[in-house]
């Protein structure tokens, strides 16, 4: 977990995540991040958008507690009563990051197993998480038998199995083909509407960030800073009609314009 001195409980009851003047300097002396300030409300869907190497993933890892900030504070809302096997944060990596030596079911069960959750309850929650991502009948398959999109669904089920309040996603669909990505986008939106999780979604796709989020935060690189914030006020629930609407195109143009300075000065862009 992060440096305890940098961890403060968020007192404002409505906030899920709160970063204050967070910086990250790597041992090599490279300033990767910040200073950053960020508040994410409970139940909000926020995208961090920026070029490769702008520190989006670093920011996400700091929120997850994978590594401590060099300065500043990372506040994450904790549950008052932690139930066994429950974990406040679910993390979906860019790669599916599955254990190849065991079945889909055992992969999804991992967070509960590590928390010593009782078997009966764990079985129930694994079944539920697999059903949520539409993989109920693939529970005995091995990861190598699945397509890229299905592996990502397993990864998502594993993040959901602890019923987390906050879902952190690090370019989860970047390696998928466009059709699969659209389907997973729609499924993710449906899950978010039903489960009301807080989602922080890292991506380098303008179109994906606009389609999914309530708020797009644009980042610049070296060190990573927030350069713009765009609210996407579209009617819910969003679907294919939103993807083809003039509103969507307008938002995409606005976000692209805000993103352009991040790429200026970079060769080949």
């Amino acid at each position, binding site marked *: 977990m992060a440096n305890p001195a940098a961890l403060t409980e968020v007192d404002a009851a409505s906030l899920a995540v709160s970063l204050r003047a967070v910086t990250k300097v790597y041992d090599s002396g490279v300033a990767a991040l910040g200073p950053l300030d960020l508040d994410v409300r409970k139940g909000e869907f926020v995208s961090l958008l920026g070029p490769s190497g702008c520190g989006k993933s670093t920011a996400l890892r700091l929120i997850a507690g994978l590594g401590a900030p060099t300065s500043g504070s990372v506040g994450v809302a904790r549950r008052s009563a932690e139930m066994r096997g429950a974990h406040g944060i679910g*993390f979906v*990596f860019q790669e599916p990051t599955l*254990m190849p030596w065991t079945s889909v079911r055992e992969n999804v069960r991992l967070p509960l197993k*590590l928390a010593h959750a009782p078997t009966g309850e764990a079985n129930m929650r694994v079944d539920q998480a697999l059903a949520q991502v539409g993989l109920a009948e693939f529970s005995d398959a091995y990861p190598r038998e699945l397509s890229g999109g299905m592996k990502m669904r397993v990864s998502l089920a594993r993040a959901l199995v602890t019923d987390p309040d906050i879902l952190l996603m690090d370019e989860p669909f970047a390696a998928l083909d466009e059709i699969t990505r659209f389907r997973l986008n729609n499924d993710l939106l449906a899950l978010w509407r039903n489960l009301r999780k807080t989602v922080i979604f890292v991506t380098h796709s303008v179109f994906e960030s606009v389609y999914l989020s309530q708020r797009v935060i644009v980042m610049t690189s070296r060190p990573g800073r927030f350069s713009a914030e765009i609210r996407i006020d579209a009617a819910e629930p969003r679907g294919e009609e939103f993807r083809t609407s003039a509103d969507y195109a307008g938002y995409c143009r606005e976000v692209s314009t805000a993103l352009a300075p991040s790429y200026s000065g970079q060769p080949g862009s």
Partner: protein
Amino acid sequence: MSSLQTPPLSARQAGPERGGQRLVRILLPIVVLAAGVAAWELVVRLNDIPPYVLPGPIAVFGTLISDWPALSQSLLTTLQTTLEGFVAAAIGGVALALLFNQSKWLEYSLFPYAVILQVTPVIAIAPLLLIYLPQQTAVIVCAWIVAFFPVLSNTTLGLNSVDRNLAGLFQLYGASRMQTLAYLKLPSALPFILGGLRIAGGLSLIGAVVAEIAAGSAGAGSGLAYRIAESGYRLDIPKMFAALLLLSAAGIVIYGLLALISHLVLQRWHESALGKEN
């Protein structure tokens, strides 16, 4: 051969082609072996070579059958030594690698000695071991010295090859050291460990043979290598060949068994054990 001119249009068409190739791969070595044995017998007969210089394969087989009671006893002795050395090497190699993985200090202190043990020829260490240890123990220690290093180095490599994101995941969910070891590091290292064991199987047979020869010249022992040395003194060349044949067969069986175990353990998930069509 026809596939060179017309590449298969689909995977289904490639099926029988591959089956034919497989048959060729099994048949060819057998044909070569039969031809070699026939040539050997022919050379011995045509030149009237006496059996104390070079026995023909028929004479060797004859000895194998007539001396079977003594030879099989020796085979069992050698196999037992090999097995004990192999088990010691497997346990010792994996355990040392786990210790090194848990403590860098231990690794820095002890790893150079593991290398020294590995690079010093065991045939030179065996006579010393026979002085300080009871003979049976010395023979097993020899087998262990030769065989443990590939297990140690392969397991170490495997433990260090854990997927970085998976390690992050375990950290995120607050896995303990033991949980990380049991659920992440050991399964990740398994293909490497099995590769190490495959090498160790053959090496422990070599270690056992070397120690038996060293011990045999000291006047005791009853393993296959001792039979070879003893028959050499008595110019019983057919028996030397018969014992050698058994040693060779033992080596092949050990390798085959370990390869089979490795395949059975990994077949559902590891690239090395998957069919090529995937």
